[in-house]
């Protein structure tokens, strides 16, 4: 277990708050959810649901990219994985989306500056920077959670614990890491065959800790890929 079991999602899902955009790998808030929880009727501004939803897609992209800007670029993909598989991150994201929807609805919010380069509050042209994408409160929500750290402080590798070597070997055989023939000749951890896909460590209480080092690789292998032949995802 890496992302705590109580927090982990096997895959991102759609509900009354979000729908998951598989092409960009981000959660996009729904128009009704923003109306219900943030009290903003986007239909007044955008007249149709499609227009409002497109606006929210753009908003979601800006919010997500701003969150990634806090990260070391090496860890952005890990962060994407975490955002898609954590219940807690889902809640934090919706708070930030709601706040950003408020922030951007005001005249001169970042969307206006984004589109025109003009800040109507100050009546002058401003340079649009990433620091203006989120409101001060939304930025603080990011910083108060793990979303704002440079390194994602969640180990996303799957882990298993075993009381003794025999049960560890049974697990390795059952999951095709080693064959049962190899398992028969293994007496200590040192005899385990070299394999980059997992690691086994002994804990202070003598238990064996198995770490699946390919957790992330396996997850990204299941990503929806663009099929250039059929033009589908």
């Amino acid at each position, binding site marked *: *277990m*890496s992302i*705590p079991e109580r927090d982990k999602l096997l895959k991102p899902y759609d509900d009354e708050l979000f729908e998951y955009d598989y092409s960009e790998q981000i959660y996009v808030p729904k128009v009704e959810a923003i109306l219900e929880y943030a009290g903003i009727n986007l239909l007044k501004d955008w007249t149709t649901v499609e227009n409002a939803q497109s606006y929210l897609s753009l908003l979601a992209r800006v919010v997500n990219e701003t969150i990634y800007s806090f990260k*070391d*670029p*090496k860890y952005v993909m890990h962060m994407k994985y975490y955002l898609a598989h954590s219940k807690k991150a889902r809640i934090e994201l919706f708070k930030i989306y709601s706040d950003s929807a408020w922030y951007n609805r005001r005249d001169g919010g970042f969307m206006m500056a984004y589109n025109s380069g003009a800040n109507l509050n100050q009546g002058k042209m401003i340079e649009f920077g990433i620091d203006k994408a989120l409101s001060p409160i939304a930025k603080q929500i990011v910083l108060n959670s793990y979303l704002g750290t*440079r*390194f*994602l*402080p*969640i*180990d996303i590798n799957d*882990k298993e*614990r075993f009381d003794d070597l025999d049960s560890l070997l049974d697990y390795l055989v059952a999951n095709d890491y080693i064959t049962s023939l190899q398992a028969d000749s293994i007496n200590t951890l040192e005899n385990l065959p070299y394999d980059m896909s997992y*690691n086994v*460590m*002994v*804990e*202070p*209480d003598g238990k064996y*800790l198995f*770490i699946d080092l390919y957790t992330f690789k396996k997850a990204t292998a299941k990503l929806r890929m663009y099929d250039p032949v059929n033009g589908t995802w």
Partner: protein
Amino acid sequence: MNIYMKEGNEYMGLYVEGYNKFSLYSTPNQFSMNFMNPFHPMVTMVVSIDFPVLPNFEDDTWKDIPVFTLKDFLGYCQPFEPLLEDEDSFLYNAFLLYRALAINNIQYGNIKDVINWRYLVAMYIGHYMDIHVENLKDIDNRFSLNQSPREQKYKVEELRMLSDNEFMSTPYGRLFWDKYRVFGSLVFKGTRKQRGRY
């Protein structure tokens, strides 16, 4: 160094080799000599080093090392608590590795006191975890293909201390070295060998 050659008989029988006693009967020439003259007094001679007294490698008084868990570490190094909440935390693997290194390098037999030993092991791990976290953050983009800042600021006293001793580079390293140098100075280093993990 005072070296005395004594006759083994004074020990009321055969002496135990090792510690500070070494036999003269250990080379092929001596074996041949003994073969030709089994009653030669050299057969029972022993070299005994009275000073300095070498550590007795056969002594297993301190062989059973105390338990050192994550709880012991967090007790001394509390700032790591949010990063190492439990065994599923992202730094736990690194903790296990540095713990093994610390137990291997700070031998309990040299400290001979459980409280000081735990403190030293915690500080040693804290020192390396500090560097580990710093490297993970990688503020200077050192381990990245992105552009890294050209200018870096150093304090003169930091550079001086760094060149002296690696442990001086972190707060926990300084605390470790401050105490360990007392114990370390008492460890006889002449012929002492790392005995591997206890």
